[in-house]
């Protein structure tokens, strides 16, 4: 598990991170969301040791991270970077070797990744001759070639077409399945909502929400339900219930507890036919906009 503990960092008077604390748990895909300039990239660079924090620390399985640990991390920086004039397979092997993998194993692993990412035919082409989407895939392969024990990816899906998103996702899930913690940042909230087991929402250098989707929802919304029946007007009269939205037979209400909601259902059944009764799930985008404000 990767733990970020009370990290602060400022640049020339501007505080980029303020007392940031969160965990990236083993085997889970953790989404890192926040507006531009929220401090995601700074936090990722600090995890990788490319930047040092002014205060706070990064822990691995509960003890301070070492350079040896970091050498085993896989990293995809925000601004993409590989050697433009070097062949794809060759630079994957080079990066693998820098991470301490033998040439032979790096070569085998690079071929495997290129195959998974659909780049096998471009194996011996120079990076600069690849399309941007393919360069992006090569970049993902570069983060994975040394079989990382943890993955930190800055916007891995930006610039990928839907097909490529799925392929990449498959590869990342494989890594998570091995038990490695995976942290990736993204602007695409719908994507994060679909992909991530867990979320960290950052705004103005501070963590505004962290946890699983369900935990975040629970923490940031009162539970709401949707009821469709013949005439839902009676709901207003039930104590402990706040009607949010009402339109004839359709009502959305917040309840103080599940028991209160159950009372609404019972009453509705007594009064007529219940066509539908379900908890109303707010999309994360809504919560996101609320918490980053």
């Amino acid at each position, binding site marked *: 598990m990767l733990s970020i503990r009370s990290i602060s960092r400022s640049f020339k008077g501007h505080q980029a991170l303020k007392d940031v604390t969160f965990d990236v748990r083993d085997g889970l895909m953790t989404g890192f969301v926040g507006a531009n300039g929220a401090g995601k990239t700074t936090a990722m660079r600090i995890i990788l040791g*490319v930047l040092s924090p002014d205060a706070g620390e990064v822990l691995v*399985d509960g003890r301070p991270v070492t*350079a040896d640990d970091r050498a*085993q991390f896989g990293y995809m920086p925000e601004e993409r970077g*590989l*050697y433009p004039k070097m062949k794809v397979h060759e630079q994957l092997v080079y990066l693998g070797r820098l991470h*301490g993998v033998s040439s032979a194993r790096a070569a085998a692993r690079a071929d495997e990744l290129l195959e998974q990412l659909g780049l096998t035919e471009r194996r011996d082409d120079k990076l600069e001759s690849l399309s941007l989407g393919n360069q992006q895939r090569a970049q993902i392969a570069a983060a994975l070639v040394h*079989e990382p024990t943890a993955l930190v990816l800055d916007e891995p899906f930006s610039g990928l077409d839907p097909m490529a998103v799925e392929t990449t996702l498959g590869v990342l899930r494989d890594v998570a399945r091995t*038990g490695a913690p995976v942290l990736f940042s993204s602007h695409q909230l719908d994507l994060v909502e679909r992909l991530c087991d867990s979320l960290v929402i950052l705004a103005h250098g501070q963590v505004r929400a962290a946890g699983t989707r369900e935990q975040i929802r629970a923490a940031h919304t009162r539970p709401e339900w949707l009821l469709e029946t013949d005439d839902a007007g009676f709901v207003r009269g039930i104590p402990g219930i706040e009607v949010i939205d009402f339109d004839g037979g359709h009502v959305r209400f917040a309840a103080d507890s599940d028991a209160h909601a159950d009372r609404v259902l019972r009453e509705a059944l007594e009064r007529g036919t219940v066509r539908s009764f379900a908890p109303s799930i707010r999309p994360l985008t809504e919560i996101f906009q609320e918490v980053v404000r």
Partner: protein
Amino acid sequence: MTTTAPSRPGPSGRADASVANDRGRTRFAQAAGIVAQREIMMQLRSKAFIISTLITLALVFGAVLFSSFGPALFDEDTEVATTSEIAPTLEAIDGLAVVPTDDADAVRDAVRDGSVDAGVIAGDGPSGLTVVGDREADSGLIQLLSVTPDVELLDPNAPDPLLTYFIGLAFGLVFFMSAMTFGQTIAQSVVEEKQSRIVEIMLATVPARAILAGKVIGNSVLAFGQIALIAAVTLIGGALTGSQLLLDGLGMPIVWFVVLFTVGFIMLAALYAAAAALVSRAEDLGSATSPLIFLVMIPYFLVIVFNNNPLALQIMSYVPFSAPVAVPMRVYLQTTEWWEPYLSLGVLVLFTVLVIGVAARIYERSLLKTGSMVKWRDALKA
């Protein structure tokens, strides 16, 4: 997590998926080696590098051959028309091709129509000969026919000033060109990594100093290789043409040049890498490296100006930037004590170690700074 992790698929077969494992980091020397290997490989694969090296070697070889055969090509006998009475006298002199003619007028005609270089006819002067020329008499011929006073040479083996000049020029030029070429190469490679941001991935796994060491070693090996090839071609060319100058006089200076150049280049390479780390874009390289170009050009110009000034050369031989050129010149001119080149080498090595320390500091601090050029002073500040 360590015990409950599912086994890792793929070629690794590593079941332990804990974030921490025992694989550890690449050792410094190993990381530097991998970086150096890439630098060398990329250059050796570059057509421009191979072709320019071959052209340089061809030029050097040509120059060596020319220096021994060249003068002979222009050293033809002077054709002299003369009358039959004087012909035997002239034929006894080396360097003259005698063309006998009927009389003095025929000699004048031959000179006038250009079929001979000059003419000699009987005259009234003390030598009894008159040299006939078109507009000017052939001075070489006049010298051959004159009575020369005795000459006493105090230092018959002293180096020829013109030759000294050319040898100085050659050392200066080779130093200047190699340092510039490989200095620019290392600078470009640093900025390429900075611009493409791959340096961020590298820094996450190996220390900045290992990257710097790898780059300096890789490019120094290449520069040393090229200089050693040039030296070898010069010496082989000298041996083939039997040039005593090269074999006797220039052997040791060339060896000293290669040794000092190699150390001096390591120093320059570190400086070039540091300078390149200050900028984020290849377009800004020029302004960052221009102070270094001066450093490289100084010995080149100084050796041309001062190749015959022992004091200036002595001072230059203890200044790290000019030592690689000045020391071989002094060895060639035999104006050094035997230990002086070693002292120069020592000074150069010490200075290089210092420079590498400073350069590593600048490199480390500037590598992740993007945007406008970082100032040298800011990069050094704590």
